[in-house]
């Protein structure tokens, strides 16, 4: 059996097999129909809550629990009330934007630098430090929350925007991502530049960084997303209301005794929208980043 297979050119074998399949197209067509039904059903399951929440964020308080797909009446008052500033809501949004973009910019810079050293330089202690970076990825992050809070407090990092950004500004996941990407660029890039007498820093800044655009985009997006969605750290570290992020502000919204679902949904929509937009523009990098950082655990 094995001998006959190795003698026959495999492609011819496969083609003939497909022809046999074409002999029973009905079964295959049923399978594909079923496949699309399942996929569409799950898409509805996946998108439904968001679409319905978005629609309902235009409903009045009296109307918000009715299951109708069209708000009656359609109102913008929820958004107007949120943005009127009575709950410091605009402030929360600004804080979240600063936290997320600050974290993104600093991770791009610092993780690229670390990734450049790990990916393209030979130095004493490299293997140990890189192994450490991988090991740290497996430490359950919530477990060191209390000591992290105490360390931050002793450094004077509480109740301020730096208290959010500083601990998150150089994340091991992002370093791993950059290292994996930069490792793959051709060696000759440095060699020819070094012959011309360029310093390591100039090579990094002028040659490597422009070539690292895809990885930089992934790091920027993933760290923006992490900070924008972060809840527990801002909850612990910020004490005055003016320093709350959008997530913490929304949580207090939801914890009040009577729940104003209409405002809640409008707030959730404001929280969701920036990420959805970024996702649709940079989808490719998102997916690449997640697949690569997932490999860290292997």
């Amino acid at each position, binding site marked *: 059996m094995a001998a006959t297979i190795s003698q026959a050119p495999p492609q011819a074998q496969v083609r003939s097999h497909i022809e046999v399949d074409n002999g029973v197209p009905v079964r295959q067509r049923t399978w594909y129909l079923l496949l699309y039904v399942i996929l569409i059903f799950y898409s509805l399951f996946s998108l439904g809550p968001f679409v319905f929440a978005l629609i309902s964020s235009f409903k009045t308080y009296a109307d918000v629990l009715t299951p109708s797909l069209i708000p009656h009446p359609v109102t913008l008052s929820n958004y107007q009330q949120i943005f009127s500033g009575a709950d410091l809501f605009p402030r929360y949004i600004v804080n979240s934007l600063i936290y997320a973009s600050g974290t993104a910019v600093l991770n791009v810079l610092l993780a690229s630098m670390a990734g450049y050293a790990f990916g393209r330089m030979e130095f004493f202690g490299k293997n140990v430090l890189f192994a450490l970076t991988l090991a*740290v990825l497996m430490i359950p992050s919530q477990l*060191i929350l209390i000591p992290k809070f105490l360390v931050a407090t002793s450094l004077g990092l509480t109740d301020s925007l730096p208290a959010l950004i500083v601990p998150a500004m150089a994340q091991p996941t992002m370093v791993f991502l950059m290292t994996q990407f930069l490792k793959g660029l051709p060696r000759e890039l440095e060699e020819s530049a070094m012959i011309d007498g360029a310093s390591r820093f100039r090579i990094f800044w002028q040659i490597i960084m422009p070539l690292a655009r895809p990885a930089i985009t992934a790091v920027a997006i993933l760290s923006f997303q992490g900070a924008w969605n972060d809840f527990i750290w801002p909850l612990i570290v910020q004490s005055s209301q003016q320093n709350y992020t959008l997530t913490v502000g929304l949580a207090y919204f939801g914890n009040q005794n009577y729940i104003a679902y209409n405002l809640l949904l409008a707030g*959730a929509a404001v*929280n969701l929208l920036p990420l959805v937009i970024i996702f649709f523009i940079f989808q490719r990098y*998102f997916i690449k980043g997640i697949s690569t950082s997932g490999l860290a655990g292997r």
Partner: protein
Amino acid sequence: MQGALHVSGTARKSKPKRSMGRKLRETLTAYGFLAPYLLILATFTLIATGYAFYLSFFYLDFGFGDPIFYGFKNYEHIWYDLTHSGDFFISLKNILFYTVGVVILQTVLALALALLLNQKVRGRGIFRTAFYLPALTSSVAISLIFIWLYNSQGVINYLLSLVGIHGPPWLYDPTTALPSIMLLNIWTTAPTFMLLYLAALQDIPDHLYEAARVDGANAWQITRKITLPLLRPTTFLVTALGTIGSFQMFDQSYLMGGASGGPLKSTLTPVLEIYNTAFADHAMGRACAEAVVLFVVILFFTILQRRFIDTNIQY
């Protein structure tokens, strides 16, 4: 001419020294590049981890003085709690139930979605985007949306009433509150793991499938005998990451259980309990001891999985 000769002469003589010097300079430059990252890593992860172990032997009432050495008293307190059905015990019981359910179901769902999308599907990108959306968004926004959906007069109960089922008050009933959060989290986490499975599926060499087809294997046999065994490393990764993540659940129980793990502590999780010990009871030392215990539990389960899922595969 003389100058050039002179230079080449010294170069030859000091070659080992200079390459040593270059190595040293390269190392120093590398550490220059690494310095900010290492500083942050050391401060907020390594020192913090060590500090957690250290503090677990101390009494620290935050804001009121220095840590007082406490020996094993924090651990004795936890032991008493565990043997007398205290809050930490309840939280561990909840999270075990939660983790087992969530990890199994989300792994199966992620695998199923990936296998479906790996077929010759038209519009694969669109489906992938649609499936991924729940994983993209913040736990806070999703929790708020589901507080609304799970309301006893909410949409979910409305849909159930259409098929004649009288839905429970999901988040207000101790028997359904935790399963409600489980369903929500399976729905939000599975898409990320689906992406990992999809990446792994694309790594499986085509010639393996071809060989199997030549041998007359059908689609089901190929999936069972080739695809699933080759996906084992990913399955391990997905279950390990899923377990570590599930054990640390906090946001949803804080938001949906009214910040106290309610109703009747049915959604109390260890991280929420640690948070309460630290910031409501002001017992930082005991909170660290609880974190150490939880760390050991997570480690135990990760090692257990490693033993059950054989990742040693050969093509």
